[in-house]
């Protein structure tokens, strides 16, 4: 790991540049002490950290670099009423008390900036290139889409950042994932990242900060880049990032917390330096071809168990490693799937569009464009949950809510919702979902629930047909129905 650290002549990767710019203290044999530019917090992983502070008589060093929101646990209906579940309510109330006591800016339920923490940061313009961003949530990797080093931390580390605005971290290795070519029409960032994870396995990125690059990545919108970086943790990577470019700058400019005037110019000048030097070396590299990618779905119980939508449920014997065969057998039993079944024949009870992976405005527009003029299958339920209040309001302004409701889908308030089923939005035992979220673990969306991870177009088409489908499988909408 140390090779490049000592060879000063060699160029640096993007990740190394950002890392090195945040080292407060570095001593051989010890982890680096890394400065944290932005600390995002939410109700689930913070209460014990604040308790720790109080017990030790410590304070929050930089409340002005800290932002809190309520997302994991909040209901997505009746958001103006008191939360029914007393345990959830206590957790939310604890968040509010802690924010007030320590002077932290909080966007609570009912606030126009409330939403999933990884949707709120970029939307406010707080997420910017070259930053270090942490949160007690593994999908903090989302913010890497802006060229930031962003990763999830545990509650002890949340306490550490609150008290010191730093973290002790061993410098990870760097990896490049180069995706050449262009994604074919109808194939999305989600399909790209699901393909990658099946290719590498869930542990393939372990120990690395991954830089996604290449033509297909450059062609993605910020939303698409966030989807890719979001799922970095699903193949074990410490973080995932993408070099900032004009797409990034255009997205940030004009947002409430973006630099303005001369500050903007200074910021952009610095952001433009945030690229991997030509003579830099990565510790590992993976190359993929986007032009061969197709809609991709999972059949198993981890995000690395996926196949093209046009494929079939695999046979456990298809796997070379004994451990993968056993895992496949267990997954098939849990998912109640028979090997050899075409994925397109798998019937789905619930479709969930939302989460920090695919709950942004672009995702809702895409889903609505497919649903418009069609009906959700009568045996299928479709839940559309915007990632934030801003996303909800924008969607309503564009009339997307009406399109969803007319098709028979449920239109909800903002939150994590069925991504992890901490609120009342859960699958029943044995129920099967097609979900635009990021985890298909056993019980993730509710005890005994069975999850297929899918892209937004696949989710929308599946809602219409009731079986896993892509928009290409749908009957054309009759003229006049739109």
């Amino acid at each position, binding site marked *: 790991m140390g090779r490049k650290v000592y060879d000063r002549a060699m160029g640096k990767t993007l990740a190394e540049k950002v890392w090195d710019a945040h080292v407060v203290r570095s001593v051989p044999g010890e982890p680096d*002490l890394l*400065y944290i530019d932005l600390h995002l917090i939410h109700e689930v992983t913070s209460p014990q950290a604040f*308790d720790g502070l109080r017990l030790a008589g410590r304070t929050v060093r930089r409340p002005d670099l800290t932002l809190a929101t309520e997302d994991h646990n909040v209901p997505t209906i009746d958001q103006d009423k008191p939360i029914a579940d007393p345990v959830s309510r206590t957790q939310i109330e604890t968040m509010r008390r802690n924010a007030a006591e320590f002077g932290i800016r909080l966007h609570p339920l009912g606030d126009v900036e409330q939403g999933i923490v990884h949707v709120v940061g970029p939307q406010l313009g707080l997420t910017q290139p070259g930053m270090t961003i942490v949160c007690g949530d593994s999908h903090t990797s989302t913010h890497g889409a802006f060229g930031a080093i962003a990763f999830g931390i*545990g509650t002890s580390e949340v306490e550490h950042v609150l008290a010191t605005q730093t973290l002790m971290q061993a410098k990870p290795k760097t990896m490049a994932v180069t995706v050449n070519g262009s994604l074919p029409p109808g194939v999305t960032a989600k399909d790209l990242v699901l393909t990658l994870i099946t290719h590498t396995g869930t542990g393939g990125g372990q120990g690395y900060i991954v830089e996604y690059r290449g033509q297909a990545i450059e062609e993605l919108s910020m939303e698409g880049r966030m989807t890719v970086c979001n799922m970095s943790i699903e193949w074990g990577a410490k973080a995932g990032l993408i070099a900032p470019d004009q797409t990034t700058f255009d997205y940030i400019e004009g947002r409430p917390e973006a*630099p303005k005037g001369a500050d903007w110019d200074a910021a952009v000048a610095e952001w433009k330096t945030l690229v991997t030097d030509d003579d830099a070396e990565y510790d590992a590299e993976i190359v993929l071809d986007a032009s061969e990618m197709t809609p991709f779905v999972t059949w198993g119980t981890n995000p690395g168990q996926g196949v093209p939508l046009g494929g079939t449920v695999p046979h456990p014997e298809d796997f070379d490693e004994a*451990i993968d065969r056993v895992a496949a057998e267990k997954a098939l039993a849990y998912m109640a799937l028979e090997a050899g079944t075409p994925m397109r024949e798998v019937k789905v009870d619930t479709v969930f569009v939302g989460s920090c992976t695919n709950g942004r405005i672009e995702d809702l527009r895409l889903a609505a464009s497919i649903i418009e003029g069609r009906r959700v299958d009568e045996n299928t339920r479709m839940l559309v949950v915007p990632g934030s209040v801003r996303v909800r309001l924008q969607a309503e302004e564009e009339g997307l809510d009406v399109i969803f409701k007319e098709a028979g889908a449920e239109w909800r308030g903002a939150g994590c919702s069925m991504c992890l089923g901490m609120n009342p939005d859960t699958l029943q035992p044995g129920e099967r979902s097609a979900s635009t979220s990021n985890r298909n673990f056993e019980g993730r969306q509710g*005890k005994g629930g069975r999850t297929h991870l899918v892209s937004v177009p696949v989710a929308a088409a599946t809602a219409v047909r009731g079986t896993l489908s892509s928009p290409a499988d749908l009957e054309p909408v009759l003229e006049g129905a739109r």
Partner: protein
Amino acid sequence: MDAFTSHTGVGVPLRRSNVDTDQIIPAEYLKRVTRSGFEDGLFAAWRNDPSFVLNRAEYAAGSVLVAGIDFGTGSSREHAVWALQNYGFRAVIAPRFGDIFRGNSGKAGLLAAQVDEKVVQRLWDHLEANPGATVTVDLESRTVRAGEGPGAIEDSFDIDDYTRWRLLEGLDDVGITLSHADDIAAYEATRPSWKPVTQRA
């Protein structure tokens, strides 16, 4: 945090790979605001199954968990570590851990010992053939030991030096970092003024 030097306790063979943090403790248990009492949610989905290893009397007092590869992948919830600790586990042995889980373990005082896959296989076989047998995890010498005589298992485990040192000393990270407060202040003085803040003074 209590110091950890060496621990000997009943070994529990968990013959599964990819045990993610949602399996270790499902989200419905994460609503609590305390740091204790999470043992009831540990492996919740499997606890109803009478044949599940923790439900067998011989393993009930287990304190050393022996699991398959990629233990603790997934979410950042430190509750997964607390649930194991609240139940009585002091150490987890596996061929590979989820990064955040391993980090959290080090902070909370649960020893995450990474060993070769073959060692896990031998431990599983040994613990299944001898239910209730103990395993020793010695942090000082970085070794795991189980069994006696010719079939005895003894091998080394991996843990980074810094985490090992902190566990051996039982040190609190925040305290260590606060002793470098001057370095932090010096760094802060060099940050460009256009970097974003969440609230202005």
